């Protein structure tokens, strides 16, 4: 969508897109999914297989914290290839050397 020149001059493009900037049919939402469906009478039926469930893994004996001590400087990787950590060849080689099973 290209706004008119007047709006471009007003830095309209810098503004956040709202439902009032576009024609009908635009659903902005909040990034959350639905948890059920609407009935024709205006009610709402929760479908429990659509409701998100978050399972926390057992944290007993887990020693990591969200923080790292400041005595240790931040570490950054140094990679020989241009892709760095995203290099599939390195990944495959490591898989071969460490696991190679699954």
């Amino acid at each position, binding site marked *: 969508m290209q706004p008119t020149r007047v709006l471009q001059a007003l830095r309209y493009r810098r503004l956040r897109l709202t439902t009032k900037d576009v024609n009908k049919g635009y659903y902005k939402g909040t990034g959350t999914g639905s948890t059920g469906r609407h009935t024709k009478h205006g009610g709402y039926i929760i479908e429990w297989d659509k409701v998100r469930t978050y399972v926390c893994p057992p944290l007993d004996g887990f020693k990591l914290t969200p923080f790292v001590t400041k005595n240790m400087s931040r570490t950054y990787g140094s990679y020989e290839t241009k892709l760095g*950590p995203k290099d599939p060849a390195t990944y495959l080689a490591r898989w071969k050397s460490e696991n190679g099973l699954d």
Partner: protein
Amino acid sequence: MAAAAMRPSMGALGRISTSTPSPLRPLTQTASLSTTAALLKRHKYREARVYRDNSKHRGESAIHRSGTRWRLSMSDEPLPRPVPRDKLPAIETDPDHGLWEFFQNRSMVVNSPPEIAKHGRSWTAEELRHKSWDDLHRLWWVCAKERNRIATANWERNKSGLGFGEAEMRERDNAVRQTMRSIKHVLTERFYTWEDAIKVAEKDPEVDLTGNGPAFTPSNFLEDSDVAATEGEQQAAEATEEAVEKAEPAAAATPESATIPSSQQQTDTPRL
């Protein structure tokens, strides 16, 4: 016609269903009201009207403190007295209740700003690259719990007007959020690399992804030629090991146990 014929019987059905007790309702209650004498008492006293008075507050006066005009059924009942607070039994709470995890310190509602500021830096992506999926999953939840603690403390501080500490909390929160971003970054990167590695593996004669037989059949079993073939890969693996070894003594030397990263760096865990 059929509907008209049905109508009286339907009405009778309704009457029956209202008169018969519901099977859901327990039949233990025998009286319609409580049988307490005070509630059933009806005072008959002189000057009581025999007809209904539509003016409910007739004769009541706030100036003359007249009270209610009609004596109430419980007027001569002794009122209950509240138990003094020191006589009340102590409230028993579970010392190991899970809700305690929402607080950083059990003895205080909110930590002091210097205490809040005592935290390390966030994890970098490179440090998290050497962690297994399970470690990252659990670290994510540790971060989520820490953010819950921060939010609880913020809420308590606002509610009670305790003053300073917002800036320190924000810094702490930013560090946790940066760690969580790095976890997401590493996992996304790992997934894309895995996808690309499958494409590479399809062309690799040593790898069989069909599921029939072993997935990996080394073409050369000799150690020397293996080293020669995968020299670059070995170097990469050594580089990561060095980084981990560098991390370990630094972590062990820190006095603050809360911010020490785990010394059990899991380099040997599979990343698949």
